[in-house]
């Protein structure tokens, strides 16, 4: 290991065709095997097993007694779509995606454009600051935000009180709980897309803007007719990437609202987790596959949209 000098042996070099090549094929698998084995057992197998589970009535009590598991076909799936709680969680999750994704992208786009508009001096500072929430634990952030939004002691309502407004009980009211979570989620996640947008913006040649300025186009007009069209693919990628993340929203309601009040913040992931907690493994697996299909559908949609226009 320690010797870096490589011994020379011209004899081997001459024979580096037939047998060496075949040996190299096995060497390839030698390198791949450790990962592939772990991957098959702990990732690939579970993907298939999850689908299998979803077609059975497996429960936590069957762990020690696998023979008592019955195949029940699509029963879990039909039950899911008549389960009021699941439907509620699906609606909540769709709201998070449909409202949260545009909100996140708009903030990210605004921040990226602001940082790209010739203000070089402090760009690194702002970029790091805006990106900061992305790398921190959602659980810790959710704990902090739960206290920030507390109606009595929370900073937000305290600040509102200073200007004479009685703030709502953000997380305790069915009409404000989900919007609060969405705003917090956008606050946490826009940094990723900001960095990606910033990279894309820097790839747009400055001459385009110069020409547009000569033609008398204002900043907003330039944004509409130069920046947005050129960033279309990036925005689409961002929408899908962010949407896939938001489809799985879990920690925020878990820590901040426990799905309440009155299930107004129950997400699909949270519902799956709860069903798992009740021991309904087959049912939880079925719900997780529905979520999986939604994620795949979103990705496929992206590819189609990209192909259509390009």
């Amino acid at each position, binding site marked *: *290991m320690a010797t870096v000098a490589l*011994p020379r042996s011209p004899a*081997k*070099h001459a024979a580096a065709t037939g047998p060496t090549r075949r040996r190299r*094929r096995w*060497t*390839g698998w030698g*390198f*791949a095997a*450790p*990962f*592939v084995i*772990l*991957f098959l*057992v*702990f990732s690939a197998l*579970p993907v298939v*097993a*999850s689908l299998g*589970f979803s077609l059975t009535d497996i429960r936590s009590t069957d*762990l020690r007694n696998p023979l008592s598991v019955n195949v029940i076909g699509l029963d879990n799936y039909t039950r899911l779509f008549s389960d009021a709680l699941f439907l509620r969680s699906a609606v909540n999750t769709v709201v998070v995606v449909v409202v949260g994704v545009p909100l996140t992208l708009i903030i990210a786009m605004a921040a990226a454009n602001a940082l790209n508009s010739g*203000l070089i001096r402090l760009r690194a500072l*702002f970029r*790091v600051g805006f990106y*900061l929430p992305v*790398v*921190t*634990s*959602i*659980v*810790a*952030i*959710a*704990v*902090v935000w*739960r*206290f920030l939004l507390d109606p009595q*002691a929370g*900073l937000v309502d*305290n*600040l509102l*009180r200073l200007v004479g407004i009685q703030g709502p009980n953000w997380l305790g009211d069915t009409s404000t709980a989900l919007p609060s979570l969405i705003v917090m989620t956008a606050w946490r996640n826009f940094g*990723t897309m900001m*960095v*990606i947008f910033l990279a894309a913006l820097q790839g747009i040649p400055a001459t385009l803007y110069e020409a547009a300025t000569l033609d*008398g186009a*204002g*900043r907003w*007009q330039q944004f509409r007719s130069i920046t947005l069209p050129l960033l279309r693919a990036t925005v689409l990628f961002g929408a899908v990437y962010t949407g896939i993340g938001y489809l799985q929203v879990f*920690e925020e309601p878990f*820590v901040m609202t426990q799905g309440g009040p009155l299930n107004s913040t129950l997400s699909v992931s949270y519902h799956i987790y709860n069903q*798992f907690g009740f021991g309904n*493994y087959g049912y*939880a697996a079925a719900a*997780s596959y529905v*979520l*999986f299909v939604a*994620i*795949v559908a979103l*990705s496929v949609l992206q590819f189609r949209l990209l192909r259509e226009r390009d």
Partner: protein
Amino acid sequence: MAVTDTAAPPSAGPGAGGSTVRGRDRTAKIILYAILVLGLLVVVGPFLWMALSSFKPEAEIRASPPTWWPRTWTFTNYRDLFARLDFPVYFTNSVVVAVLVTLGNLLFCSLLGYALAKLDFPGRRAVFLVVLGMLMVPGMVLFVPQFVLISNMGLANTYAGLVLPFLAGPFGVFLMRQFLLSIPDDLLEAARVDGAGEWRIFWQVVLPLCRPALATLAILTFLTSWNNFLWPLVVATTADKYTLPVALALFSIGQHRADYGLMLSGAVVVILPVLIVFLVLQRHFMRGIATTGLK
């Protein structure tokens, strides 16, 4: 937006017209700075409030009107966290799990990444496609069968159970393969001509060249593992195996739901190591995003 819409046509001579344009540019710049600083306050403010409040006594955290700077500094929250609650244990668990997961990914992902980028073996394309496809599979789909598997292996509530499903992640393979593709084949061929075996080439030629990619992978894996929540929540059934996020989440919705100071200092303990790593090594993050298009 409407304000900046009316850009004057620059056909006028470079006299008075130029100075008004510059004047408007300065106004625009000031407005821009103001918005950015306000935005920074909104983003960083909660972190500052968390950090400062963790040093306040409970009553001051709840005071109305609120204080920013602590009137009374106290370490009671942190003392309670480490003496009354078992945060040293959770901290250790988080470190052990994150370190093992990181080492596993560095090793296994660079091995497979090298094979995929530089070696020709049967099934190479299939392996790559399947691993890539796994990037799309959410943890929510995996955790139920993973739990059944780990339980049947007798590994529930153990370090092995916490670590095993994350030792070989698809993201690292993708990252390492991308990087390794940029290493010229001639270099490897030269080593082969010199008679070095594939293993030796990997350890002595390839890995040293991969240092930047390995650094990026190590940082991103460590952080992902440190922040990971669902799996440790499911597998760690007794408190002695909780990781930091699990302990913080369960305490904050359980017996300590009203202990603001305690939970805020807990959040500081979860966030601080990540914050330090991020601030010191932030160029690696930006590179990670740049190479792969995602975190």
